[in-house]
């Protein structure tokens, strides 16, 4: 059993040149811990989509990765516009992204649905005009080691 690992990463809103940096660190850390690649892949999708959401919509955000023998926990809190209707935002294809974000191949309304598909637990809290908190978990069997 390895100890609980925790690390936080800053995410700057609007800075597409660094988008993916936090997800990249998440991948690196989970691989170093030695988790099975299927768990790493799911966590990386969650981290990337949550990071892109902050970059696309928020002023700034913080991603916290916590790894215990039972689960990978990814929590992203941002200061930003918030989500008016979370249920609508969870629908595949729904997006409020601007044209230039869409032209880059983002904003297809797949971010939150991708997070949901890869999570064993997902909780989203948001306050309009304040910010959003996304808390996702990937549960690990046998400490997440390759079988």
């Amino acid at each position: 059993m390895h100890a609980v690992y925790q690390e936080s990463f800053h995410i700057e809103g609007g800075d597409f040149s660094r988008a993916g940096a936090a997800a990249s660190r998440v991948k690196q850390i989970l691989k170093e811990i030695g988790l099975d690649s299927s768990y790493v892949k799911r966590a990386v999708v969650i981290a990337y989509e949550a990071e892109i959401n902050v970059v696309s919509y928020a002023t700034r955000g913080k991603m916290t990765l916590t790894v215990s023998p039972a689960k990978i926990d990814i929590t992203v809190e941002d200061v930003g516009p918030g989500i008016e209707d979370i249920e609508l935002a969870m629908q595949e294809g729904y997006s409020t992204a601007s044209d230039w974000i869409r032209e880059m191949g983002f904003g297809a309304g797949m971010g939150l649905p991708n997070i949901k598909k890869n999570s064993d637990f997902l909780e989203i809290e948001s306050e309009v005009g304040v910010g959003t908190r996304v808390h996702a978990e990937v549960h690990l069997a046998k400490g997440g080691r390759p079988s």
Partner: protein
Amino acid sequence: MKLREIVESLGLEVKCCGDRLDREVTGAYASDLLSDVMAKSKAGDVWITLQTHMNIIAVAALNDLAGIILVNGREPEEATLKKADDEGIVIMVSKEPTFEVAGKLYEMGLRGGHGAG
């Protein structure tokens, strides 16, 4: 098959990381939506896209993709090439559109292998 065979067979121009053409390619995925590629691509895939901005490099690196083929003769942006060099992501350019590139890779025996869902 190796990236080198694809480059030679399709007459691709290699824009970055020509020293990595011995990378094994196990499949392919074609899409211009980054979330779609995050969700559906597999490690070892070569990715066919018309997107040229630097965020394609993070997507390729996060998913351990074998390389990126840009279609329609699209030139990668300067920042994209720099990041590709940093991350060791092979970037190739085809003069042809997505449909032709995908068709030729399929003829060479590559499959997506993703199925429905």
